[in-house]
């Protein structure tokens, strides 16, 4: 049983932004935001802190808490977004935010009912149970 994040120690926080230009897909934009957040840095200290063994499994509990802000928070498919993170106990909170702006409608790439550009923001936090 993994503890709640309040009972664990926050080790690392990273941020990212993701855009979906065609199709008004908030899940895609959110997944890209998470991807950007985790792609540019590597928290190597976790190997030691979470006591990761030779098989690559942490022997202490690690929780990855993702907050995604997008214009349509209810439409975000949490499971799909969390697939971007390769391993760990993951959870996602979807809140209203990000940005929506008028897009350029291309018949070949867009549906008429979904012409807008969507921008999502992501915050990825890593918690470790050090007790």
């Amino acid at each position, binding site marked *: 049983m993994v503890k709640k994040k309040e009972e664990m*120690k*926050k*080790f*690392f*926080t*990273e*941020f*990212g932004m993701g855009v979906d230009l065609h199709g008004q897909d908030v899940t895609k934009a959110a997944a890209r935001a998470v991807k950007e*957040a985790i792609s*540019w*840095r*590597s*928290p*190597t*200290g976790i190997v*030691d*802190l979470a006591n990761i063994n030779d098989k690559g499994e942490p022997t202490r509990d690690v929780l990855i808490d993702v907050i995604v802000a997008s214009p349509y928070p209810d439409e975000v498919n949490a499971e799909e977004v969390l697939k971007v993170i390769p391993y760990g106990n993951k959870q996602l909170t979807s809140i209203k935010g990000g940005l929506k702006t008028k897009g350029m409608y291309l018949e070949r790439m867009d549906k008429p009912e979904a012409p807008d550009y969507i921008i999502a923001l992501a915050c990825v936090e890593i918690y*470790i149970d*050090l007790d």
Partner: protein
Amino acid sequence: MVIKKIVIEVGSGIDMYGEDVTKTAQRAVKNAISGASLPGLVTCYGLTKDQFNEKMIIEVTIATPYPDRVNGEEVLSIIPFGQKSIKVQEGGILTPGTSIKLANELYGTPNIVVAIAVITVYIETD
């Protein structure tokens, strides 16, 4: 005393006008350190605010065109604390930029420079 590698951060920086590689390198460093925060230094490793300077070791590697022109001290001034060191190597991108005549007259060159920064953060623990 043990030295532990805590995080590796990567960033890129661009100078659109003037081929100023120091500015480009500064932007790359800024980009690398801006998107993440390390609360673990306090919560997991128990450092206090006063210890940051003394206990953190920060290695910066820059890849840029014209590596000889980079002013290392100015680049490192972007990083707020720690024992800092810098290594500059040939790399990055030099590409033709704007063809606006006025811009070329003002800045003396039409080229765009792109630099990459890799920052490795270590801490000393007992």
